[in-house]
């Protein structure tokens, strides 16, 4: 009998006051009983609209039916056929715009908690030894540049087909934004590492500390016997506003702030990397990265953390759930405000941010109402730290060292509908192609690229 409740089975969360001061995961996940109860809300529609919303086409009703029966291991196996990183996707996908956005149950009431169920299955299997199926080697080698979500997906899919895959990662650990960007309280690093270990158990090689473009070029990789190269180097180059005072002590890019915290664990006392202990923090921007930076600053002990955003609450690009979590934790939203200058003291340390109030005009090219400064409304916000989270662009290193690789005006690699670049045998996907987007879109691109690479190598002979 289906569970006809109009709302999702509630999920346990840490209390806002408690969690705002620790880096432990906010959402605690379903118990097996709760998962089965929620799974029973799925109507197992014939036309499966949820699946069309999933960039990696997880067989959603099928796995949920298994969860409803309590066959969690089988449910997990179904997810794994199309998704290399379910513990990650279940946590960080914007499901409201994807699978859950298409769920029939969402027409009247809340959609089925697909993300929560996917996460439950992955977590349930986390400490169970799963026999790794190693495919029969097919004798073909593929190189993958960058170790983020698109690359991990390509590597997983190709390894399943018997390819000998090597990931070249610039950092000392693979994972990309999953490791350095998204904080522990949303995505525990042990979980990311577990997903990566699953890949290496399948036979994927990971070469860390390898900055492609400096230590080896794409052409050199091709000369090393790789028949195809996938470029998943992301969009990690942070932008600054170009306003006065961005060189002061206490101004961070969100990338730097989050890398210190997530990758280098600066919030832990026994790790060497330092981070500033701030009292009042302004985070400029309104995306998920801005929310992550703000909530991290709060956890490091700040008294006031402000989101400074030039449009209104309705235009915030961050996920609703993250905005809600941030508000619960005491983050203050100064919307319709834009910084014009960062102010410093005599030692060159930040001691204020001059902002101007904004109002919304006509919609601009992006379809959002254009913010217009209100003349004479300037005021000084009392802060000692400013974190700039206004976006990133693709790193120029690979495009500038690879002849024949074309990019658009934004520095994004140009690809066709098969994720094939303008250079033969070189494929690309994720933020390197789209500019900063989401984990799941990067994974979807990786999926497509893996299929195209397989096709390309098979047809070459």
């Amino acid at each position: 009998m289906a569970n006809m409740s109009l709302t999702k089975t509630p999920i346990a969360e840490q209390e806002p006051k408690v969690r705002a001061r620790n880096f432990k995961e906010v959402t605690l996940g379903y118990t097996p009983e709760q998962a089965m109860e929620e799974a029973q809300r799925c109507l197992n529609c014939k036309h499966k609209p949820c699946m069309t919303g999933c960039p990696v086409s997880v067989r959603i009703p099928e796995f949920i039916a298994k969860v409803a029966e309590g066959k969690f291991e089988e449910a997990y196996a179904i997810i794994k056929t199309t998704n290399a990183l379910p513990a990650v996707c279940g946590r960080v996908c914007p499901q409201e715009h994807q699978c859950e956005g298409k769920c029939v149950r969402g027409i009247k009431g809340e959609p089925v908690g697909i993300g929560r169920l996917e996460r439950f299955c992955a977590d349930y299997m986390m400490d169970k030894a799963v026999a790794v199926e190693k495919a029969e080697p097919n004798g073909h080698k593929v190189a993958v540049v960058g170790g983020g979500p698109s690359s991990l997906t390509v590597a997983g899919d190709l390894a399943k087909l018997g390819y000998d895959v090597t990931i070249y990662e610039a950092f000392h650990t693979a994972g990309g934004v999953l490791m350095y960007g998204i904080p522990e309280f949303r995505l525990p690093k042990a979980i990311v590492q577990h997903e990566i270990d699953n890949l290496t158990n399948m036979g994927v090689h990971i070469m860390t500390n390898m900055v492609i473009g400096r230590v080896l070029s794409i052409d050199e990789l091709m000369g090393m016997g790789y028949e195809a190269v996938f470029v998943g180097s992301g969009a990690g180059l942070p932008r600054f506003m170009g306003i006065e005072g961005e060189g002061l002590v206490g101004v961070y890019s969100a990338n730097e702030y989050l890398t210190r915290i997530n990758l280098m664990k600066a919030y832990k006392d026994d790790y060497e990397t330092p981070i500033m202990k701030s009292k009042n923090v302004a985070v400029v921007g309104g995306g998920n990265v801005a929310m992550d930076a703000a909530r991290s600053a709060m956890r490091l002990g700040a008294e006031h953390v402000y989101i400074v955003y030039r449009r209104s609450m309705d235009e915030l690009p961050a996920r609703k759930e993250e905005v809600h979590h941030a508000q619960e934790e005491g983050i203050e939203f100064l919307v319709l405000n834009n910084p014009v200058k960062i102010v410093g003291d005599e030692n060159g340390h930040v001691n204020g941010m001059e902002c101007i109030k904004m109002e919304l005009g006509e919609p601009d090219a992006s379809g959002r109402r254009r913010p217009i400064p209100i003349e004479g409304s300037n005021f000084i916000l009392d802060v000692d730290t400013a974190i700039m989270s206004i976006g990133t662009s693709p790193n120029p290193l690979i495009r500038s060292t690879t002849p024949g690789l074309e990019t658009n005006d934004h520095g994004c690699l140009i690809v066709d509908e098969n994720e094939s670049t303008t250079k033969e045998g070189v494929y690309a996907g994720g933020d390197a192609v789209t500019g900063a987007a989401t984990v799941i879109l990067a994974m979807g691109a990786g999926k497509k690229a893996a299929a195209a690479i397989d096709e390309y190598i098979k047809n070459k002979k």
Partner: protein
Amino acid sequence: MYKIVTRKQLNDAVVLMEIDAPYIAAKAEAGQFIIYRVDEKGERVPLTIADYDREKGTITIIFQVVGASTTELARLNEGDYIHDVVGPLGVATEYDEGIKRVAVVGGGVGCAIAYPQAKKLHNMGVEVDLIAGFRSKDIVILEDEMGKASSHLHICTDDGSYGYHGFVTNKLQELIDGGAKFDEVIAIGPVPMMKFVCKVTKPYDIKTLVSLNPIMIDGTGMCGGCRVTVDGKIKYACVDGPDFDGQKVDFDELMRRNSTYKEQEKAHLCRLTGGVR
């Protein structure tokens, strides 16, 4: 993991290490750097590549023990491993064509980085004045190597205990006054030293290249922690540099930014040494 194949103590505080890193050795050029992480809990620290041996597959780093991470690195011996070494990073130094005489100025441990520059120029047939400054005689390093890598080696000590008595800037000024025609000056060392070398060369309009040493994390251009203001614009030292036109660098801002974590650095070092340096 990267094996230490040679370890030499050059003076009380300066250590040379030759590290097995064939990929880096194959590509390294003068002016480039690496980032190391001693162990799982370590921070990422940049160090210039002082030398490389493409055939042996090794690179050489020379560093001064100044804080927690260099203290930990210095504790490692031959045969030990460094957890992570990534490189070569940054843009190799570019020399103008047709240069005939160059002054390479090194300060303290900066001489370890000035030395490969001098060596490269010297091998190109350029007349090299290598001006190497130290506080006193007992901390002079790489004298033989620097002698071989230059046409004229000028060792300076602040206290006059060895060589020329005075700062590198005094020596540079003397050489210019004495009629030396430098097509270029390359200065590598503490930020104040580089700043003052630029002050010396400015009136003569001598192109002056400096190798900047801001705080870095990734070293690949993804955080902007190493940003410096050059000619009024934000540049990332790890990808746009570390070499820049010294006359255009905002040195005061660099000095301020480099002091960001002073207090925390002290605290970390104290934990390692029990407060004893």
